[in-house]
C-alpha cells in the first residue's frame, strides 16, 4: 500500500535519509566524520536541560511565524514580508516598553500591553504589503521583500539614532530594559514558559481556524480560486487583507517574544532569519498545521545543535542551514516523485 498515508510517510522518510546522506557527502568531502557531526548536533541540542531550553527559545518565534504563514499560504499568498513583520513587532514592543519605563503600573500589565503592541505593529506592517497588493497591484512577494529592507533600516536608525545607548551607540543594540520588563523565566534556564505558552496558543488557534471555521474555509477558497470565490459570494480582497493581518500579528508576537523573553532590548538582527526559516517549515509540512510543532522543533534543534560544530569539530555552524535547505528540497522532490508513482500505479 504505497498510495495511502503510509506511502506518503515512507516517501518523506526516504527524503530525510537522502538529505542526511547528501549532507554526509559534504562533510566527508570536508574531511569530517558525518556520524560525529550528527552526534554533536544531537548532544548540542538535547544533551542537557540547558541546551534543550535553548532549543525551545528558538522554537517559540519559529512556531509563531510558521503559524502565521499557514494563514497566508492558505489564502494563496507568499508572505515573504514576514521577516519585516517580526522586526516591526519587536520595534513596537520595545517602543511600548520605553514609554512605560518610568511608570508605576504593574509590570505584568506593561508586558501585556507591549506584546499586544508588537502584534499590532506586525499586523500593520503586513497590511502595507496587503494594501500594496490589493490597491497597487504590487505582488506580495516584491512588496514584502522591499518592506523587509525598510524594516532593517528602521531598526538600525532607531539603534543608532533616537534610541541609542547613553554615551555610545553600538551594534549590540539599545540599553537593556529593567529585569521586571521580562517575561518570567524558568530558574537557571533562558526559556520562559509564558513565551512557550503563547506560541502553543498561536498554533492551536491557527489549527482551529483552518480546520474548523467557515473563515478558514473561505480563506482556502480565496487561495485556491480567487475568481470563483468571489462569484460564490466571498468578499475576496477583504479576506486577503484579514490573512495578512493575522499573519502579521503572529509574526509581531514572535518579535515581541524576542524582545521580552530573549534579548530584553532591540538589537539589529532581532528577527534572526526566523521569517525565512518559517517559510521553509511551512513548505516542508505542506501547509498542514498539525505538523508545525514537530518540524519547527526539529529545525530549532538543528539551529542550536550546530552551534557545537565550530567549537568541537572546527566546522562552520551554517551546516544546520545546509541541512534544513537540503531537507526541504528533498521532501519537495520526493513528493513530486510520489505523485508520479501514484499516478502510474
Amino acid at each position: 500500500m504505497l498510495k495511502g498515508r503510509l506511502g506518503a510517510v515512507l516517501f518523506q522518510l526516504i527524503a530525510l535519509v537522502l538529505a542526511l546522506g547528501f549532507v554526509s557527502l559534504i562533510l566527508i568531502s570536508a574531511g569530517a566524520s558525518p556520524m560525529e557531526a550528527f552526534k554533536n548536533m544531537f548532544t548540542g541540542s538535547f544533551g542537557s536541560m540547558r541546551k534543550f531550553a535553548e532549543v525551545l527559545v528558538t522554537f517559540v518565534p519559529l512556531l509563531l511565524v510558521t503559524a502565521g504563514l499557514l494563514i497566508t499560504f492558505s489564502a494563496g499568498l507568499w508572505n515573504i514580508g514576514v521577516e519585516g513583520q517580526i522586526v516591526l513587532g519587536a520595534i513596537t514592543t520595545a517602543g511600548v516598553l520605553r514609554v512605560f519605563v518610568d511608570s508605576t503600573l504593574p509590570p505584568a500589565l506593561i508586558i501585556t500591553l507591549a506584546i499586544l503592541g508588537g502584534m499590532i505593529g506586525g499586523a500593520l506592517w503586513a497590511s502595507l504589503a496587503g494594501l500594496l497588493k490589493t490597491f497597487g497591484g504590487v505582488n506580495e512577494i516584491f512588496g514584502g521583500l522591499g518592506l523587509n529592507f525598510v524594516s532593517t533600516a528602521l531598526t538600525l536608525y532607531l539603534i543608532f539614532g533616537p534610541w541609542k545607548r547613553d554615551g555610545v551607540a553600538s551594534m549590540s543594540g539599545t540599553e537593556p530594559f529593567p529585569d521586571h520588563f521580562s517575561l518570567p523565566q524558568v530558574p537557571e534556564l533562558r526559556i520562559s514558559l509564558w513565551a512557550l505558552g503563547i506560541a502553543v496558543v498561536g498554533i492551536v488557534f491557527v489549527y482551529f481556524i483552518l480546520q474548523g471555521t467557515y473563515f478558514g474555509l473561505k480563506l482556502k477558497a480565496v487561495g485556491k480560486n480567487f475568481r470563483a470565490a468571489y462569484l460564490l459570494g466571498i468578499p475576496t480582497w477583504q479576506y486577503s487583507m484579514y490573512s495578512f493581518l493575522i499573519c502579521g500579528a503572529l509574526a509581531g508576537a514572535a518579535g515581541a517574544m524576542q524582545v521580552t523573553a530573549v534579548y530584553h532590548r532591540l538589537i539589529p538582527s532581532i528577527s534572526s532569519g526566523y521569517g525565512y526559516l518559517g517559510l521553509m517549515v511551512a513548505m516542508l509540512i505542506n501547509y498542514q498545521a498539525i505538523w508545525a510543532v514537530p518540524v519547527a522543533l526539529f529545525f530549532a534543534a538543528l539551529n542550536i545543535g550546530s552551534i557545537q560544530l565550530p567549537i568541537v569539530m572546527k566546522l562552520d555552524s551554517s551546516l544546520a542551514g545546509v541541512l534544513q535547505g537540503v531537507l526541504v528540497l528533498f521532501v519537495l522532490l520526493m513528493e513530486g516523485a510520489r505523485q508520479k508513482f501514484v499516478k502510474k500505479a
Partner: protein
Amino acid sequence: MNVELKNIHKHFGKTYANKGINLAIPAGTIQGILGENGAGKSTLMKILSGFIQADSGGQIILDGKPVTIHSPADAIHVGVGMLHQDPLDFPPMRVLDNFLLGRSGGLFPNRTAVARDFSLLAEKFDFSLDPDSYVDSLTVGERQQLEIIRLLWLGARILILDEPTTGISASQKTKLFATLKILAEQGMTVIFVSHKLEDVEHLCSQVAILRAGELVGEMKPPFSTTKLVEMMFGKAVTLGERLTAEVGDAILSLNNISLEDVRLKIKDVSLDLRAGEVIGLAGLEGSGQGMFIRACSGLVRPVGGRVQLKGHDLTGKSYHTFKNAGVNFLPAARLEEGLVPGLSLTDHFVLAEQPKGIFIDRAAGEKLAEDRIKSFNIRGTPLSTVESLSGGNQQRAELALLQTPLSMILLEHPTRGLDIESVIYIWAKLKERCKQGAAIIFISSDLEEVLQYSDRVLVFFSGKVSPPIDAATTSVEQLGQLIGGKGWPEKGGSHA
C-alpha cells in the same frame, strides 16, 4: 493518415475509463465518436494525443507503424493534434504568441512570416482573429478557432476535436464543418468527439459509439438516430414537452442600459422580466450576450441606463449586492470561474449557502452534500474534489450550488457538455425554480435548447440586440438567420 487503435485499456483506480477498445480509421475519414458523459471518449482521445498513457498491452498504429506517444509534443510530432473542449492556451499572451508556441527550432521566430501564415490560415477558414489581441479577451469559440489553425500550422494530419460545436454559433459551425470536409478530402483524418447526434449525423463518414468505457457499436451512413441513441443510452429519449410557467411579479427591469468593453458597444436595451419567465440569449459567441448577462448580475457596470431588481434600483451596485438580493450567476468556465479546484463538493455546498456562524457544522455539511449529490445525480462523493469530477458532473455540481430561494438565475451555457438526458433533467430542475417564482436568463449556442426552454428570446448580433421574440412561434431557421445577421430592421439598435 490511417489510424488504428488496438486493445486500448485505461483504468483510474478501480474504474475502467477504456476497456479493450479496437478501432480503425482510414485516411480521409471524418470519424465520429459518440457517447454520453463519462463514456470514455475524452480518455481515449487523450491517450491518442499523448496527454495520458494507456495501460500496457495496447497499441497505436499510424500508417501501419506502431508508435508510442508519451506527450502532446510527441503526438504533434507524429501528426496528431487535439483540440480540447476547454481550450488549452495562454490567456495572458497575444494571439500570435499563442500561435507561435509549440513550434520547435529557432531562437528568434520570424514574426513577419508567422503573421503571414496566420493571416492566410485564418482567411482560408474565414475566422476573424486579431493576431495582436490578447487571448483572454477572446470567446471560447474564437479560442477554439485559434487552436485549430495552430494545430494545422504545426503539421497535424490527424485532428481530434473534443465537443467542438459547444461553444460556437450555427454559422461558425457551418464554417467549421465545411473546413473539416475539405481537410478530409485532402487525406486528413478528422476525429469528431460529440454527443450531439445531429452534428455527428451531418458530418461524419463513420461513427463509433462508446458506453461505460467500451466500444458498443459502429455505424456508417445512412445513420439511424434511434439506433444511435439506443447504443449511447440503452434506450431512446426526446426533449419532451414545452413547459411554460405562470408569469408573476416583475423581477428585473432594465431601462435603456448601455454597455461597453474594448470590442463591443451595446446601446439602450430595455427589458422587463417577470417571475417564472425564461429568457434565452442567442447569438454568435462574443456578440455581447456575455457582457449583457454579466450586467444583469452586477459584474459589469452599465455606462448608461438603470437596472432595477424587484423595484429597487441596483444600478452600479456590486455583484455581491445583487447576490444578496437573490441573484445567482453561473459562469461557463467551470474550473476557472465557477468552482474552486482543491475543495470538495461539501466545501462548495457549504460556502454557497453563505454560512453565518463561526464553526463549521460538518455533519450538516455532509448531509447537505449527500442530498445535493443525490438530487442532482452527481457521480462523486461529498469528499470528492471538484477537479476529480468529469466535465458533465462539474456542470451538475455548479447547478447544485444555486441558492434557495432566488429571484433571478443567470446561466452561461448551463448544459454545455451534458448528454441529452441530463439536459432534460437539469431543465426540469430549473423550471421547478420558475414555478417557485424565479426568473431565468440563459445563454446557449444550442438553438433548439433556446427555443425549447425560453419564453422569449433576445438575439445578439455584434452589439445589436433584438426586441424580445416569442420563442413558441419562432423556428430554428428564423432564429439562425437573425443570429447570422439576416432579417434585422434597417435602423434597429446601434452598434460600434
